[in-house]
């Protein structure tokens, strides 16, 4: 029962929950092991009050045994806790890695990736920390507390209450104010996020701020924001510090209260001196332990948000689909509608076909939905209605692992790994030989710059390939796609961020890549797609017209306007 609850509350794996239970019991034993030394003092008091002292050797032996037992227990507790904690946090990390590989690609285009990585790292690390210290300890203490409470209440309920009530009250203060605490802290966090954004803005806008002398204005605005935040912080602090300090104060009161009440009971003969002393010692020990647990409780409170974020990834909806073998590579878009947010439709009843062995180009003014269309075809997103079919099969029925065997996508932004050029290209097909990799590299026009590098194809290119220029990166990504040799090729504005010189360098490679494939392309250079087998003109999410260049010049006003504009720009002279 405890296991199921823990599993749910902390998003644990099965073995993690089991480990936590083990660790909880070890903490219970840890607290129990503190009892024998108290018994030693108690026995001594008992003997003494009955007029004799007992033998020192006996006490010494008793204490040596107690020390040994305590040593063994704490040793066991330490090993279990850290063993389980690190095993579980490793499991959690592995779980997340696996889950991430299953998420739809749209998930990764929606999040800032480095931020995402950092958040996950930080979240797991603080969960790890809480597990190593707080969670098992607190629960173990709670069990110990229940057992001790029962014993104290049975022996003398009045004194028992003196010990227990303040301790219970101190935990209740924290629990009862938890909501309030978390609420105010969150309010402040929201403000802090705004401030972070303002900082980010001020940094990104530094050119504008300088060249238009906006310094004072920005400064005044942010100063005000900062002052507001300070006020909110005050409020949050008051709702947080006061309960914690009251809790701490309550937790040390049992000693005094037990002594006061106990003495009045002693005077009226309701308890013996021995019992009173026993309760005072017990009170001291419990309140000491409670002081530590209180700190852990606050740590656990703030774990919620992190656990929720991890849960969000774990429970994110996955794209369905089966393994599929395809042999026909016509891509057919049938009456597709799509929106990122509910009320704004980006694609409206679009239909067209990209034939096998042909080049199909999407054109249209910016914001018309071309890029979204490519995302639907490559199943980064699934259409709201209508279908995208490859060779007659709805791509929603094809698992992305299968689908991507048949599709190569070359993006404007190239992602590279911190390994050799050879391995970066070999990603295209893992079983390719070195010769095959080099052949693809040559076709993509990589050979020229690779041969200038110190270790040629074995050169390590740094994190995300920072050592390479834009054109070099793009050529690597084309080589990768050539090596993969997929029947469907999607090119998304791949030269838009390159300068003319570099563009020329990738053009030859591109023509090698697309031979005999189903090619779907967006290009900013209208002229370059003039010879495409089919040009699809999009406007405000709909397909306005389809056909060859000459046909569209007559039929599509949007296309005609675009061509005219492009000619004007080309002839323009300052």
């Amino acid at each position, binding site marked *: 029962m405890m296991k199921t609850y823990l599993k749910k509350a902390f998003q644990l794996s099965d073995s993690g929950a089991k480990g936590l239970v083990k660790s909880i019991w070890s903490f219970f034993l840890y607290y129990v092991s*503190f009892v024998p*030394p108290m018994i030693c003092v108690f026995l*001594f008091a008992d003997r003494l009050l009955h007029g004799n*002292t007992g033998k020192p050797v006996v006490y010494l032996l008793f204490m040596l045994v107690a020390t040994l037992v*305590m040593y063994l227990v*704490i040793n066991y507790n330490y090993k279990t806790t*850290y063993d389980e904690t690190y095993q579980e946090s*490793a499991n959690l990390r592995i779980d997340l*890695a696996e889950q*991430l590989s299953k998420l739809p690609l749209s998930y990764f285009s929606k999040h800032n990736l*480095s931020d995402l*990585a*950092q958040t*996950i790292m930080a979240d797991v690390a603080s969960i790890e920390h809480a597990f190593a210290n707080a969670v098992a300890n607190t629960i173990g203490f709670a069990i110990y507390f229940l057992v001790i409470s029962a014993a104290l209440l049975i022996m003398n309920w009045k004194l028992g209450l003196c010990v227990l009530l303040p301790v219970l009250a101190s935990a209740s203060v924290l629990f009862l104010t938890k909501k309030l605490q978390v609420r105010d802290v969150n309010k402040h966090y929201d403000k802090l996020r705004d*401030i972070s954004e303002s900082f*980010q803005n001020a*940094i990104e806008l*530094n050119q*504008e*701020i*300088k*060249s238009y002398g906006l310094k004072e204005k920005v*400064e005044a605005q942010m100063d005000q924001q900062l002052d507001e935040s300070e006020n909110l*912080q005050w409020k949050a602090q008051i709702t947080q510090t006061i309960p914690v300090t009251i809790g*701490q*104060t309550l937790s040390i*009161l049992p000693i*005094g209260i037990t*002594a006061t009440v106990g003495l*009045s009971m002693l005077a009226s003969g309701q308890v013996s001196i021995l019992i009173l*002393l026993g309760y*005072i*010692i017990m009170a*001291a020990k419990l309140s*000491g332990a409670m002081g*530590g647990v209180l700190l852990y409780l606050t740590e656990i409170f703030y774990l919620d948000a992190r656990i929720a974020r991890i849960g969000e990834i774990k429970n994110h909806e996955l794209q369905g689909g089966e393994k599929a073998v395809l042999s026909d590579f016509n891509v057919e878009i049938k009456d597709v509608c799509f929106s990122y947010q509910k009320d*704004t439709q980006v694609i409206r009843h679009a239909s067209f076909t990209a034939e096998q062995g042909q080049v199909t180009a999407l054109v249209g*003014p*910016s*914001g018309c939905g071309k890029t979204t269309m490519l995302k639907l075809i490559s199943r980064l997103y699934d259409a709201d209605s209508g279908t995208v079919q490859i060779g007659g099969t709805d791509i929603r029925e094809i698992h992305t692992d299968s689908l*991507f065997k048949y*599709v190569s996508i070359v*993006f404007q932004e190239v992602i590279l*790994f911190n390994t050799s050029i050879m391995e970066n290209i070999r*990603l295209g097909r893992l079983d390719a030989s070195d010769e095959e990799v080099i052949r693809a590299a040559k076709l993509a026009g990589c050979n020229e710059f690779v041969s200038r590098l110190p270790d040629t194809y074995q050169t390590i290119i740094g994190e995300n390939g920072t050592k390479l220029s*834009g054109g070099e990166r793009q050529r690597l990504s084309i080589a*990768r796609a050539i090596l993969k040799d997929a029947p469907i090729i999607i090119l998304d*504005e791949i030269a*838009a961020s390159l300068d003319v*010189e570099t563009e020329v360098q990738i053009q030859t490679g591109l023509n090698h890549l697309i031979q005999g494939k189903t090619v779907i*392309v967006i290009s900013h*250079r*209208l*002229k370059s797609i003039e010879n495409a087998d089919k040009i699809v003109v999009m406007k405000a999410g709909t397909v306005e017209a389809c056909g060859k260049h000459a046909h569209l010049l007559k039929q599509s006003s949007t296309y005609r306007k675009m061509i005219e504009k*492009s000619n*004007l*720009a080309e002839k*323009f*002279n*300052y």
Partner: protein
Amino acid sequence: MKSIRSLYKKLLQYVPDKRIWAYSSMALSAAAVCSYMGAYWFLWQSIVSILVIPAYEKAMYDAIIVVALMILRGILNIASATCSHYLGFRLETNLRKNGLHKLLDASSSFFDHNSSGEIRKVIDDNAAETHKTVAHLIPDNITAVMTPVLMFVLMFAIDYRLGILLILTTVIGVLQYRKMSGGTEFLSGYSAALQKMSAATVEYIRGMQIIKIFGVTVQYYKTLIDSIKEYKQYVYQYSLSCKNPYVGFQVLFNVFYAFAVPAAVVLISYGEPAMLILAKIVFFAVFSGAVFTSFTSIMFTGQDNFGAQNTLNQLDELTASMDQAKLPHGSEENFQNFDIEFRHVDFKYDDTFVLKNFNLTLHQNKTYALIGSSGGGKSTIAKLISGFYPVDGGEILIGGKNIQSYSEKALIQNIAFVFQHSQLLKTSIYENVRIGNSQATRQQIMDALDAANCTSILDKFSQREMTVIGAKGVYLSGGEVQRIAIARAILKNANIIIMDEASAAADPENEYELQQAFQKLMRGKTVIMIAHRLSSIQNVDQILFVQNGKVVEQGTHNELMSYNGRYKDFQDVYCKANQWRLA
């Protein structure tokens, strides 16, 4: 101790007028410690009254004082925390404000060298980190120092032998704890494993699109998993290395008091009063709980001090580099003319020279087009004229005077630039243009929008020029953003215009409008443009071909074409790119 003092000194510099709060917090927390220890003193009195005298009434009276003092301690703690938090929050605010002010004063080269995320993290997040430590550390350090001292005093007052036992325990405990920090070798291995894991995570997530599309999940998955396992192994090993000292520490502080029992028996047999000894033993047992809690929290305080020192150092480093990159400005308000001259200019990026001993003269009211391969230095030349970059050698003159002799205001008024990645503020289009000249009338602003061909942009939105940038449903393409930025520059009406023609590539249908807008901006000014569309610059006054930080060819289009050099090659490549067809 010394390091803590210097830490405090550094922190308090940011809140000079709030020092009193720091002292109040310290005084209050010292009072709290006193009342805490006072409570134990009365508890001792009470136990003595029960066992030794016995006088129950006095014992009860003492016990009530115990409760009262403990409550008093709570109140004092709240008061102390309030003071220290007040100070901490003000400190946090001031750290951010200070960071912001330095940030706004830093030169543009500072921003080229530091990623926005990093800068923000150090200023913004570190401020929060520092307040946390200040707010807690000010009282905690006092508690950490005073509690053990008073504990020893108290114990010695009761029985010097117990006092010695307590000191012995403490010394052994501290020595145990010292061992816990682990060997340096271990730590470096650990942090290497951590770094490896976080690099693998970042790469895995960033590369996920590619990993999935090429179906190579397993391979990259394995690298990540291996790094996770390696890290786990390291932390586990590390925690095991701390095990013995930790367990020793725990056992020691939880058993030491009971070892007084056998000794007590011996003492009684030598004739010491039995009940007094019992009272001491009982009190010692009760007191040991407080000892354990105090020493545990003292350990935490030590760690926090270390952390605070660390974050503050980072912040100091960054502010120092911002200060270093601060630009000096003179007081010259008027320009004699707008000729621009580079005289023996050196400019470094990191450690490589982009420009070395660079000389160039540009005349007023002429248009210059800079062209060349990327990385050749043409954007650097344009950027340096903006006056927001410090040069590493030589000087840049405008109107015959060093650019740094002019006031910041004069430079701002006379130089305008529109670079590739123009940014708009998150306010209305109207306000975005108005920052070009805050004195402008509505008519002038609308005229500027019109001149920059922005009418078609306004037509897209029902709120027209009052449309707020970044609001829901407001989408502007790169070319459109740039046009609004041009309107802003037109309104500013500066004499020197620096512009980067590019980014038209991203939305071709805007390119022509953009070109026209640029043309209006250039009219009658001294213009330095970075040209990307080579067909458009045939009529400019001078074309400068920049390569490896030098102007290698200079002249009109016709001159350079007949010269048959790099410029001609460039035009040929341009034609080739233009003639290419995908098929």
